[in-house]
């Protein structure tokens, strides 16, 4: 189905009610894998972080990573879940070379955390409660490279190459209950949920949750039912949707596609689908009939996990402030609107601005730089704001230089430019580029006198009380000093010399 065959979004929502289920996998930031002591460092050379356990060698035995379990409990608690008093791992059996064991160690009917919720805030401030079915512990798979096909995809490949460095890295899978009642806002809710979850994971410090690096991945389950009916329709599962924007687009596309199929009298096939970034469409993956028979059974090589209530309460006691609560607090502290806060959030600037304020900057100044000049640069360079080669401390230093009159706005921009260009910290850039405001009163006075002499007519107007005309002279002085003067001081000097008062 091409994009042109779709039912319009509005028409789809006139007739149908979407129901979603979101499954999010989070790669934990532990130093070692879930069941062995191999390092989890990204970017190591192929198969340099493997051992008999994660390679599935006969006789090897797994041992659970304590921080993996702790992280799972923290996530469960932050999601308002009940933490199991006793639970086990299970083998999920399947034949695919990404796991050399031929099974993935996961949890089946005894997840470590279950029955919770996450309140997510939509862009207009409305809060939507997403109920959580479960969060369970499992492990990541190896990385496949398919060789011989035209596109590097598995289809048409002659053979495949496996790097097992990633096999065994701890994953937490978080599954929502069916999300009902979101109506036309379903795609927005999906995006807001994943965004909120990502913030939460980061706040818990259990993972960096960088979606572009696959540290957090989302599967979007979606079905439609005729409006006013109860029974769920057949769902599709769009796999590995790896950005917030894509989550929203995938949900939207599937609503339109399902509606088109259903409205023309067709039936939705239960299948997995692949999302395509280029045009926001999805295409058929594998059909899920009996393929999903994993023959789960309790993992006999691992003993049950039975988190003591004391441990759980200790972890609950040190949970950080929830991101939504923190955002609302910051919004009030900064005295800005819901809309402005949302822009800051979308730009990924909350932590940067907070850190800049902590480094001594005024919050308005910190916001101005991160959301203005720096956001523009990040956008131009196609990078995340946080990836710009400038630190909150450096931005704070620039705001301090502006506040004490050493730099004006224009010079501050040039200073930031210099820092971004790798010329050093703000003070070094100011020094090297000679960006100090001309505060030498003598030099400034000369420039003012010259400007007055060259613009006698304007000077007369000002003498005559037309103070507003001073702007032109200020401009002339700024031009003469190549922008390196403090405009307010220049104005003072001009009025002083011409005997005029504001």
């Amino acid at each position, binding site marked *: 189905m091409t994009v042109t065959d779709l039912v319009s979004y509005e028409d789809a929502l006139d007739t149908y009610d979407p129901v979603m289920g979101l499954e999010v996998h989070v790669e934990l930031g*532990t*130093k*070692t894998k879930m069941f*062995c*002591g*191999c*390092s989890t460092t990204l970017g190591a*050379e*192929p*198969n*340099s*972080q*493997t*051992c*008999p356990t994660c*390679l599935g060698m006969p006789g090897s035995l797994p*041992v*659970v*990573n*304590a*921080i*993996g*379990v702790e992280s799972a409990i923290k996530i469960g608690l932050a999601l308002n879940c009940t933490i199991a008093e*006793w639970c*086990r791992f299970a083998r999920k*059996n399947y*034949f*695919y*070379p990404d796991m*050399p064991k031929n099974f993935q160690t996961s949890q089946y009917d005894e997840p470590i955390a279950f029955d919770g919720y996450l309140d997510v805030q939509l862009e207009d401030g409305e809060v939507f409660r997403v109920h959580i079915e479960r969060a369970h512990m499992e492990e990541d798979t190896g990385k*496949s*490279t*398919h*060789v011989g096909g035209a596109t590097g995809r*598995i*289809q*048409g*490949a*002659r*053979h*495949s*190459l*496996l*790097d*097992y460095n990633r096999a065994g890295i701890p994953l937490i899978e978080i599954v929502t209950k069916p999300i009902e009642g979101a109506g036309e806002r379903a795609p927005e809710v999906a995006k807001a949920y994943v965004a909120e979850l990502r913030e939460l994971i980061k706040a818990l410090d259990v993972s960096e949750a960088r979606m572009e690096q696959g540290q957090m991945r989302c599967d979007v389950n979606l079905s439609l039912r005729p409006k006013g009916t109860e029974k769920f329709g057949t769902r599709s599962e769009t796999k590995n949707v790896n950005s917030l924007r894509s989550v929203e687009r995938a949900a939207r596309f599937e609503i339109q596609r399902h509606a088109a199929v259903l409205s023309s009298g067709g039936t939705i096939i239960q299948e997995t689908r692949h999302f395509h970034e280029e045009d926001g469409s999805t295409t058929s993956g594998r059909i899920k009939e*009996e393929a999903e*028979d994993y*023959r789960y*059974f*309790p*993992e*006999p090589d*691992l*003993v*049950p*996990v*039975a*988190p003591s209530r004391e441990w759980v309460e200790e972890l609950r006691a040190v949970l950080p402030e929830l991101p939504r609560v923190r955002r609302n607090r910051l919004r009030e502290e900064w005295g800005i609107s819901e809309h402005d806060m949302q822009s800051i959030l979308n730009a990924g600037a909350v932590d940067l601005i907070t850190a800049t304020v902590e480094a001594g900057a005024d919050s308005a100044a910190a916001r101005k730089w991160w959301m203005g000049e720096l956001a523009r640069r990040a956008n131009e360079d196609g990078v995340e704001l946080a990836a710009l080669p400038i630190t909150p401390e450096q931005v704070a230093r620039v705001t301090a230089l502006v506040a004490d009159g050493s730099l004006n706005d224009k010079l501050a921009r040039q200073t930031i430019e210099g820092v971004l260009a790798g010329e050093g910290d703000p003070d070094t850039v100011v020094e090297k580029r000679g960006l100090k405001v001309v505060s030498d009163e003598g030099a400034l006075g000369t420039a003012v006198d010259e400007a007055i002499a060259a613009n006698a007519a304007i000077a007369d107007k000002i003498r005559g009380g037309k103070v507003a005309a001073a702007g032109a002279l200020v401009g002339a002085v700024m031009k003469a000093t190549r922008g390196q003067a403090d405009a307010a001081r220049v104005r003072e000097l001009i009025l002083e010399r011409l005997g005029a008062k504001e």
Partner: protein
Amino acid sequence: MPGITREEVAHLARLARLELQGEELDHFAGQLDDIIGAVARVSEVADQDVPPTSHPLPLTNVMRPDEVRPSLTPEQALSGAPAQEQQRFKVPQILGEE
């Protein structure tokens, strides 16, 4: 005790990627039936108050600290691989032509 059917054997064979012929399906259905029948005798002695177990020892919470231990070298890891390429395990074609 319900018998293992031919269809169940065929399903298991498909999951296990085993190619079984008609006669073999019947043969294994009988054998699996015998094996499961033998194991099922356990339920004759297991009472209601004996919970099912997945591990012989009454242990819980065996965990290790999150500390890196030496891995194998790539050469060691790949030493048993039937085929390798670019320091990776080389496996046969996974999917046929579309």
